[in-house]
């Protein structure tokens, strides 16, 4: 067996301590070590964006980052977005309202990308072109993107940016 390395990773506010192979990527850690299967793996080569999570608040492709690289760091996944009672947050609610999801496989990555966009927005109104550029790293085969663009535009207005 390959040597195992101890890691301590804070995911959605909970600390997980595990011993992992150095080759295990973060997406596999989330899915197989701590059973957070909401983060999906679509390509495992960093293009599709389904596995997008936030590490210390910044989006990363969790298929391209090793679990050992996140030792001691904070990870946010889709499971931590809604309120504890299951109430959807504004990003999730807007995606449903605008039919921005169909099969739902890419959706967790979309939610995390839009979550980062909201954090980085500085309270300004985004244009559609800006939203499309920022979402261009997330592949979706079902929706044609229009619903998720509309959802993002709705939650990226100055009025809605403070809400969560």
């Amino acid at each position, binding site marked *: 067996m390959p040597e195992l390395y101890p890691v301590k990773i804070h995911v959605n506010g909970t600390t997980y301590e595990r011993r992992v192979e150095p080759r295990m990527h973060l997406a596999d850690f989330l899915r197989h070590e701590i059973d957070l*299967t909401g983060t999906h793996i679509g390509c*495992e080569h960093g293009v599709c964006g389904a596995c997008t999570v936030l590490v210390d608040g910044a989006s990363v492709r969790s298929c391209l980052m090793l679990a050992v690289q996140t030792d001691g760091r904070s990870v946010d996944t889709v499971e931590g977005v809604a309120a504890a009672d299951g109430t959807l947050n504004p990003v999730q609610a807007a995606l449903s309202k605008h039919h921005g999801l169909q099969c739902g*496989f890419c959706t967790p990555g979309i939610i995390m990308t839009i979550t980062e966009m909201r954090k980085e927005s500085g309270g300004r109104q985004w244009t559609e072109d800006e939203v499309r550029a920022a979402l261009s790293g997330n592949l979706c085969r079902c929706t044609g993107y*229009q619903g998720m663009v509309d959802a993002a535009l709705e939650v990226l207005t100055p009025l809605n940016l403070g809400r969560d």
Partner: protein
Amino acid sequence: MTDNPFQSWMSKSVPRVEDDRLLQGRGKFLDDIRLDRLLMAAFVRSPVAHAILKKINLDAARALPGVRAVFSYNDLRPLLSLDRIPLALPSGAIRFDVDPPALAHEEICYVGEPIAVVIAETRAIAEDAVALVELEFDPLPVVMDPRDGVDKDAPKARLDCPDNLVARHVLKYGNGEAAFAAAAHRVKDCFRLNKGGGHSMEPRGIVARVDDDDLLTVWDSTQMPHRAKAILVNALGLSEEKVRVIAPDVGGGFGPKAVFHPEELVIPAVALKLRTPVKWAEDRFESFTATVQERVQIWDMEAAFDAEGKLLAIRGQLFHDHGAATPYGVALPYNAATNLIGPYALPAYDLEILMCLTNMVPACPTRGAGRPQGTFVMERLLDRAADELGLAREEIRQRNLIPLEQMPYTIPVIMRDGSTMTYDSGDYPECQRRVLEAAGWSEFDKRRDAARRDGRFLGIGLSNYVEGTGRGPFESASIRVGPSGKIMVSSGATAQGQGVKSMLAQISAGVLGMNPKDVHVVDGDTNATVLGLGAFASRQAVTAGNAIYLATRRVAEKARAMAAHMLEASADDLEIADGNIFVKGVPQLKVTLGDVSKALSGMPGYAIPGGMEPGLEAAVDFQPGPLTYTNGSHVAEVEVDPDTGAVKITRYVVVHDCGRMINPMMVEGQVLGGVVHGIGATLLEWMRYDDQGQPATVTYADYLLPTCDVVPRIEIHHMESPTPLNPLGVKGAAESGTIGAPAVIVSAIEDALRPLKIRIRDLPVTPARLRALIAAAQGKGAAP
């Protein structure tokens, strides 16, 4: 059908019942399934396109710690009742069926073909073991082109077949020879179409578990669980009650997941042998090489017109690459051939379809299922003829569109179900008129001229199409109201993101005057519904939708009759809403659906009140009869950069008619996704191989899918021409958006470069290809 079925929830953009779970990461996709003692599989796959497999050495793989078993064909064969996977769909066109083996042996026929499977404690260990397997081959010549491949001197793509012409079909009606002889104008061209693959964001996958009582439960990321079960029963020699197939949340289908692949037999067979659960989750590299895809078609075509530009006849040959096997019959080229006719009056048609075995992964329908290709060819021929005759593109179409007064319109082509091809409803000229108006077609010249003065090249295109939807023979649905008052619906329909649960819930809720959220739907589970077909041919709203509509009406009638007895009222005076059955105008005189169900559930020894049959439930297998035809018209505007060959779609307008809409928001979602799939197939998606059959595009960095920033905002306008063929008047919507896209975009590109007289014959239109056409045209002295 005296009641208006579209009360309360019907025809409204109701939010989907699927969304809440999916938005919270609580979906249960194939690779999310966790079972005790679950082992992981990885496949040894062919690294070459055609060879004799001389030797396979599994010793090192078997010796790796953590590996539980390795199976080659010889190890697997004793577990199977058949030598090949029984996939053949009957067709008179097929000269010899080529069912694939579960694992290849002796002869290997495409890169990615499964040869052996490793079962290990983790996927990582299984992949480590795959790397230790030694294979020895004697290479064989490959067949990579469907036209070269049917030449009598071509090498054989499979040594176990007599030749490469796996199927041949002639689609012929009318007197084409006389029409061509008398034609005032003829246009002739040859098109070579590469087609996009399915590329669901979730790859394929399968989990199999055998219980102590020998029940084999298979979770399969499939569009057709009932077909998968039938094949497993057959190939494993089991009885029906010992096999259950469940499609869990499926992350997109688009065609390839309708095809039963070798892995879907291998994993259950291995789980039965090892008596421990086994999972295989396809990775993207496998998806590129081993999942069926659409493939090359070459169309050599000629059209005849009279002096006014009316179509007289079309004739030609279609060379279709069928890949290395025939897992899904001839549906794909047949759809392409019949859909060429489109919404136009075509008096004579003579097409020879030659289906060629090649050394590429087997071909299958993907979204549109051949129809975008047929439509592309027809629309290109119309544009060619328009130029030849000096007619505007909308004018030549107008002259050939089937007028409303000729509907329903019959074409002398016999379909797979034995019916004659018939367009049931729709107003094609009005559809074109509306799209031209919505797009501001008549003012486009001004925009184009203004842009050209700025050195920018704008173009506009138009396409019209039909799609036969709702393919039978049937779909099942049942509804049960429990004594609790809760509604349970099940169906053989199977979802991959279309919103099947929402669609069924909305129809049921509409009939019962309830909230769709209060209807619990189970789909894609062979234990919930004995008979079923699943997802293909834009069929589930038509087939399962009408099944649940009729079943719910039966339940409503029975509830009313029983409530009439309980309330001592006339059934005609009763209404159903919000779970109550009450006397019209006297809402306090009521019983609940739960009360009625309880009364119909019986008490030990007592008679059912009113002498009624027990139970508040109904099941309907709805047989839709012939296809119902959706239609649409697209207009696209593009800007072409002649220096780089880049194409930017600046505007896209759709007028769409799928009959009555159950949920307009979901219809639009289907159209949007379809159009964008078509944009990918037109401008980006190209599965490439070298001349030895090695796939050259096996990542999303090489094979480009459309992204958010390259697709435009798409405007959709609806017409609603209800079909007379089913009680709801609905038609399918899931694939139609794809069909018009290649034709309209290419028409717009040619229009933008009109001064260069560029003719686009090959798809996809990549920047490099377009730049080469521009350079060639400029070389002839024309300036853009």
